[in-house]
């Protein structure tokens, strides 16, 4: 693929089959992507199970971590949707914990970032929109479609407004999935490119004295990527809450 000596930032996102499985003509192989998803689930499960096992009044480190995660997501959810949004708490909490764990595990050198694949984030976004649609229609029936009909609009403008609202609703899963995917992909590509600059400068003889400059930038970018890993998990969660709010309180 790439010639030696050139920068190949995409290589890290390649999916490798670890255990080839072929079921009924479908390729269901256990890939490195699946492995890191399993690790993300295992890490979150361990933190939450062991964190909530002791239930002491004065929490230890693991228990504080679990409590902080719970309160953070609960505050975000109730802040946007109000108390009645808490029935969606298990969904939103597992979504946040999985995306956060997957983003953070992706920062381990040599690991695989599952959220840097559009198919993973698109599946999440479609799940979110499906939950919103089902919750809205079950909870409010046809009244839910009042979401697309803004009030206080002159009659001749109404068809256009309805069209705009429908397009904005339909583009939600696209933007939700592309945002997480694009951020993780862009960050990891930038890290790889600056790492390759360091290696290329070190191999370039006298120009090697410049090598610490991209190294410093790579260190700063790593710190930024940790921030982005948390921030994108938070943004994904809060946008899920905003969309759930539309399902719980439709109508303009």
């Amino acid at each position, binding site marked *: 693929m790439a010639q030696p000596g050139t920068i190949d930032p995409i290589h890290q996102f390649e999916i490798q089959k670890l255990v080839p499985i072929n079921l009924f003509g479908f390729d269901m192989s256990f890939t490195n992507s699946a492995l890191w998803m399993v690790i993300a689930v295992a890490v979150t499960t361990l933190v939450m199970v062991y964190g909530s096992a002791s239930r002491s009044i004065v929490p230890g480190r693991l228990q504080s971590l679990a409590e902080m995660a719970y309160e953070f997501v609960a505050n975000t959810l109730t802040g946007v949707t109000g108390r009645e949004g808490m029935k969606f708490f298990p969904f939103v909490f597992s979504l946040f914990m999985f995306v956060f764990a997957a983003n953070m595990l992706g920062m381990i050198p040599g690991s695989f970032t599952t959220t840097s694949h559009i198919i993973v984030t698109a599946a999440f976004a479609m799940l979110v929109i499906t939950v919103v649609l089902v919750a809205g229609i079950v909870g409010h029936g046809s009244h839910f479609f009042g979401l697309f009909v803004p009030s206080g609009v002159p009659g001749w403008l109404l068809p256009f407004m309805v069209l705009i609202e429908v397009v904005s609703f339909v583009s939600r899963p696209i933007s939700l999935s592309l945002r997480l995917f694009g951020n993780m992909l862009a960050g990891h590509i930038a890290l790889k490119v600056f790492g390759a600059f360091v290696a290329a400068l070190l191999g370039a003889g006298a120009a090697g004295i410049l090598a610490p400059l991209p190294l410093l930038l790579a260190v700063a970018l790593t710190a930024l990527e940790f921030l982005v890993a948390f*921030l994108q998990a938070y943004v994904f969660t809060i946008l899920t809450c905003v969309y759930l709010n539309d399902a719980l309180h439709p109508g303009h």
Partner: protein
Amino acid sequence: MELAAASALAKFIGAGLACLGMGLAAIGVGNIFGNFLSGALRNPSAADGQFGRAFIGAALAEGLGIFCFVVALVLLFVV
């Protein structure tokens, strides 16, 4: 110029042009956080309640920049 070389050239020019959009999205995100900060410094007690909203706005503005990035990537690696 041959057609293949011309199309490769156009691909790279298109990807570079798409990156302009990412810079414009950066202006938008900077606007949101700048205004949030100036508002928060005037009234620090109200800042915590609007924190989430600042991030929703920033996420929406940033998403448009990400679209430009995806367009650039599609031009470089897919088309």
